[in-house]
């Protein structure tokens, strides 16, 4: 148990470092994330630029900080959205059951059948039009949140529905029914608390999934676009020049890796604490 607590502490430390990077990274670096300086392009790490500069002479630490802000914003928004929709939907489908459940799950099938990358790209394009007055990066973050939330809720809904389906077969639900409790009360006061552990754990793991999705989309050029900064676009730029300037790909990759590691460790700590099956 102490081992897993130490790992949880490491996770909390990594997340704290990530938040600090997002809040204060560019102040520490002393540059704006989009300030170009062609005289100092492609420099390795130095005293002036701790993590070096990219092909346009932009400070890598400041760009990492901007990328951290984007990642955290997208992850928080997408997770909240997915949880909100998925919970309500899954509870309803699993509890009502029968034809309604069948119909609701066909809807889930349709959403599942839409390739997420396509949904995300389309939503980004649609929001480009509907949010015409908003700055580009805000539009893209909003689109990523909407798109990742829209893709994520299906998983939550399926999980919640499956948990409810299993729970309603349990004897304690039968007992509650036998006592004459009303449906709503059984669902909200008995079933939901009993299945809330796995749901919270699933929500916690949506955060790194969203960070991963954002950086992956940005890497292939479908997420955040230059001149704005995301770890994915930084890694993509670095990939092109990997042999000559390895520092360009190294730092964004390390940042993504540590951020994902931090959130996964935190999620595991949560799972150990909340999942009744795993209590020693």
């Amino acid at each position, binding site marked *: 148990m102490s081992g897993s607590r130490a790992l949880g502490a490491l996770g909390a430390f990594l997340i704290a470092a990530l938040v600090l990077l997002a809040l204060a990274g560019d102040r520490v670096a002393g540059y704006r994330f989009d300030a170009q300086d062609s005289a100092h392009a492609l420099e390795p790490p130095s005293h002036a630029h701790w993590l070096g500069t990219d092909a346009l002479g932009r400070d890598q630490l400041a760009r990492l900080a901007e990328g951290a802000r984007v990642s955290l914003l997208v992850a928080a928004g997408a997770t909240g959205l997915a949880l909100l929709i998925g919970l309500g939907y899954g509870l309803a489908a699993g509890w009502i059951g029968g034809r309604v459940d069948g119909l609701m799950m066909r809807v889930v099938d349709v959403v599942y059948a839409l390739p997420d990358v396509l949904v995300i790209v389309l939503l980004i394009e*649609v929001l480009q039009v509907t949010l015409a007055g908003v700055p580009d990066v805000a539009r893209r973050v909003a689109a990523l949140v909407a798109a990742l939330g829209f893709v994520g809720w299906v998983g939550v809904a399926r999980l919640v529905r499956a948990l409810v389906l299993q729970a309603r077969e349990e004897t304690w639900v039968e007992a509650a029914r036998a006592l004459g409790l009303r449906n709503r009360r059984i669902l909200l006061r008995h079933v939901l608390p009993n299945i809330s552990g796995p749901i919270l754990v699933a929500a916690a793991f949506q955060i*790194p999934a969203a960070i991963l999705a954002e950086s*992956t989309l940005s890497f292939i050029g479908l997420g955040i676009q230059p001149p704005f900064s995301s770890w994915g676009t930084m890694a993509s730029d670095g990939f092109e020049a990997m042999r000559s300037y390895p520092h360009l790909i190294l730092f964004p990759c390390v940042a993504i*890796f540590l951020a994902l590691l931090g959130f996964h460790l935190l999620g595991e700590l949560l799972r150990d604490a909340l999942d009744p*099956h*795993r209590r020693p």
Partner: protein
Amino acid sequence: MIRYVALRVLAGLPVLWVVATLTFALLRFLPGGPFDKEKTLPPEILRNLERRYALDGSLGAQYADYLGRLIRGDLGPSYKYVGRDVTDILADALPVSIELGLVALVIALAGGVALGLAAGARRDSLVDRAVGIASLLGVSAPSFVIGAALILGVALHLDWLPAGLWEGPIYAVLPALTLAALPLAYIAQLTRAQVVAVMDQDYVRTARAKGVSEGRVRRHHVLRNALLAVLTYFGPLLAMLLTGSFVVERIFAIPGMGRFFVTAVTNRDYPLVLGVTLVYAALVVVANLVVDVLYAWLDPRIRVGRGER
């Protein structure tokens, strides 16, 4: 059971129709036509182009025309790759992506389930800890990080395997490993957690108390129930492979569907986008069908189509 399968197959067809309609509508309502970039086109030439690509007439007529050709398996000409039909392009690109995806799927499933079983069966052992740490590192590394590391290390530095292209089985090794890494790690974690949970169940204790051999307990009680969780995970797994293939096809310069899709979207090559989407949707529908059937077979308590017990 046969009725259940038939019903689920029939349920898949409307899903495909909805997907086709949704993508058609969304793409047509997006701003900008495919020929917007050539600003100097005279109106009569533009009209001819639109007629050639069936973009004239009302939206309803375009939609009816599109569905009609779709039923005959004709996805229309590509806007961007002049003179090529979408069906042609997909016929070239799809086998590449499917081959890569299947190899990665097999690696991920076999490796993940094996590691998860090994770890979960001996809880808190050295094996368990090693698998735990390895899978944690695995889920924390995006495919482009693993791909870049493999290209730098194995392809460029050691010069053991090619760093890109798609010209034989040897070319599939690094991309398939890159694509499989993330789902493998997830499946290992999931299987392990599930095995641990199942081992605590009363029915496992009962089976042991009855004197059932440990091997039989593992095969019939633990493995079966643990696989249920892996099955529910199949949808996200497929999505992960799909999104991953976009990255992997890019960094290893593989001529699969992912590369065509990304450029097709930015070029507003409607027929190609629709074609790729439909093919992906069909794959997902089939996969979900297989999962549902397997699920019902593995867990008789949940025969989804039957509703109430």
